[in-house]
């Protein structure tokens, strides 16, 4: 087990290097720092001096890969690649265009992101499983058919609609909850309720439908027939046997997104004014702050790989037949 995890961790390194090289190529080779400067400073009235100054300010005035003017190891370290890409492995993200330290921002903003994403995830999972089980319980009746149709309708509605409609009706028209904002502590709950509600509702369509097919696949298996043959009631079969075995694909599918919850949701956070990582990213994209976007790409990939490893571990944990070696 331990050796397996260690090997997976080692395997993660080349992937992170790949991500790093890809982002380096995208951000520095395909379009040069000169282009970035021009985009930031406005395309028309820009002098070479201004571009130079912008590059020095952001530390982009060095050669890309090899600094011929330096000596010794500085030939490699005094370059954009080393200072901006390799440094990420130590989680040194540098500064954004607003001059703040990106690493600090990330640490401060993880909390609010998690405050929304975690409840959405947990409540969403419970609600979706409940709906899926209900549909499976009433399978091949009209209740099941219309449940599936309802799911398809729900998943055909744009996620933006849920947010906008939720804000308009619940917050603006009926004044039940604040429209947006965030505060820490127990007082912050009223700010969290609406985004969580919207997030859960928006996920029901695809979630419940997906879990329904998993449970249906499970219910056709031999052990379920055996259980029924023993004379167990349908409720008991569903909750004791089908639910437990159906949870294997559901849980392992959920584990991979668990670490990514830290990243928050771009759209929800920006609509509800939550100072999390999602709104940080969206602001960076809109302000074309390349340093922050690059940092978020690296962080996202890192968390995804953590998720992959956790998935493998959870497989062997929930299903003893799976052995890791």
């Amino acid at each position, binding site marked *: 087990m331990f050796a397996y995890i260690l090997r997976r961790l080692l395997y993660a390194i080349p992937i992170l290097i790949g991500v790093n090289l890809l982002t380096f190529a995208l951000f520095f080779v395909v379009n040069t720092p000169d282009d970035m400067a021009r985009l930031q400073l406005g395309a028309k009235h820009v002098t070479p001096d201004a571009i130079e100054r912008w590059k020095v300010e952001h530390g982009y005035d060095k050669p890309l890969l090899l600094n011929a003017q330096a000596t010794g190891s500085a030939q490699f370290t005094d370059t954009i690649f080393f200072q901006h890409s390799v440094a990420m492995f130590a989680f040194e993200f540098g500064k954004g265009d607003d001059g703040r330290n990106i690493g600090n921002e990330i640490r401060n903003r993880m909390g609010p992101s998690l405050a929304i994403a975690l409840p959405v995830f947990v409540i969403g999972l419970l609600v979706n499983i409940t709906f899926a089980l209900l549909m499976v319980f009433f399978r091949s009746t009209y209740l099941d058919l219309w449940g599936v149709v309802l799911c398809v309708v729900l*998943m055909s509605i*744009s*996620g933006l609609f849920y947010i906008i409609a939720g804000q308009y009706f619940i917050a603006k028209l009926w004044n039940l909850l604040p429209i947006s904002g965030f505060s820490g502590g127990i007082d912050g709950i009223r700010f969290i309720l609406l985004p969580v509600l919207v997030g859960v509702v928006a996920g029901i369509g695809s979630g419940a439908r997906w879990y329904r097919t998993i449970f249906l696949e499970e219910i056709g298996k031999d052990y379920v027939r055996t259980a029924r043959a023993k004379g167990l009631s349908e409720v008991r079969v569903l909750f004791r046997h089908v639910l437990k075995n159906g949870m294997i694909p559901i849980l392992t599918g959920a584990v991979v997104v668990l670490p990514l919850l830290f990243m928050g949701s771009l759209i929800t956070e920006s609509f509800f004014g939550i100072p999390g990582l999602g709104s940080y990213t969206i602001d960076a994209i809109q302000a074309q702050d390349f340093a922050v976007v690059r940092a978020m*790409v690296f962080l996202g990939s890192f968390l*995804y790989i953590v998720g992959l490893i956790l998935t493998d571990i959870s497989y062997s944990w929930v299903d003893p037949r799976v052995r890791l070696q």
Partner: protein
Amino acid sequence: MSVQPVILWTDALIFALLAGVLVLVWFIRRQPHLRAPWAAVARRPMAIGAALVLAVFVIIGLLDSLHYREKLGDSPPAKPQYSVEVLSVFDALVGPLRTQQEKTYSAPLAMQLYAKEFVERDDATARDYPRLKYGGAHLRQAAARVPDIVRRIFVGVAQGLAASLLLFGLLAAWQTRLRHLAFGEWLTAWGTGRLGWPGRTVVLILTAMLMLGVVIARLAAGYHVFGTDKVGQDVLYISLKSIRTGLVIGTLTTLVTLPLAIVLGIAAGYFRGWVDDVIQYVYTVLNSIPGVLLIAAAVLIVQVSIEANPDLFDTAAARADIRLLALCLIMGVTSWTGLARLLRGESLKLRTLDYVEAARAFGVSHARIISRHIFPNVFHLVLIAIVLDFSGLVLAEAVLSYVGVGVDPTMYSWGNMINGARLELAREPVVWWQLGAAFAFMFALVLAANLFADGVRDAFDPRLGGRR
């Protein structure tokens, strides 16, 4: 008036895609074993109804893909000059919808502007809602508006019904002649749903769409059916123009995805060894980068290079079009991994089967084994992925446009409509029609696509078998 045809990049690709689909249809029609699952799709009322709705969207999108530029009236005949505005056949068909521009917001079917202004009345200036330039301009007084609208709806419904009855009669005449049935027999078979194809659903959906279409056309002749936006443009026109953008993103992205996913997925599963390792490495790397961020990064870069070479594009439409194409490419490159993984798994299974082993023992080349034995057996997966991805891509466009990395801001798209209108709900009084229209159109397209995708999946996925 002479015109200069304009072929944008996406137009060319759309028509290439259309040609490809037609060739595929012709090929499938000749092969009974390929035709069978499609016949099963056609027997499902839900799927066939959705397909009819989709067809309407596709026709509008195709009409909107035939672009041209009008000749300027005062240009010399020897050296004609063309307008910088790129129009489409669709624009020409809906004519006044595009040109009848008001001053600013007006509510759906209104005859007055949504904001008070100083208006001249009986030699005095009063603060009131001014009349619209076009919406309800044929009316003399406000009291005539509601009866006029009701009359238009009734006439529209009646005409739609009449057209549908005519079509139904033609269908009945054709079918009875084809099958040598009496009209009464055919009608009973149709009414009880024993035609062998979902005749009732087809007739019902066609009737509903005809009536809706005629009613909207009737109303649009005198009013702005979905109101006007901030600069006074007809919202119905914007929504209809957005159809093409949605379709382009949903289809061209898949077109980019397919070759990558098919070649790499099958190669990884079939050859295994280092090929598998390399391909798995590539897709894990791509997969591990959050999709939106990768798209955002790539779109920012495309933006930089478009702005660095402004001379390459002679019209704003060409510029917006290149950005749309780039968006499709980028989304395609980021989204092929899911299908590739699926195909890899399936090919791993298939390569151990007896008939593949036999082919290998006979010395059949790898290329031939893959094209004759592996690919046809994973094709259903490819097809299911195409139809399932479509709706997700249409929805993704809205989100990406909101983030600011979607289509060009000058392009008509539901995402841009929502993005531009999201502050309108905070306004007093509320302006809801632009958001409403964008969501309604998007919902109709995505729901139809989802229902059709369900039908296709049920018919093609062997795992589902008879179970539903």
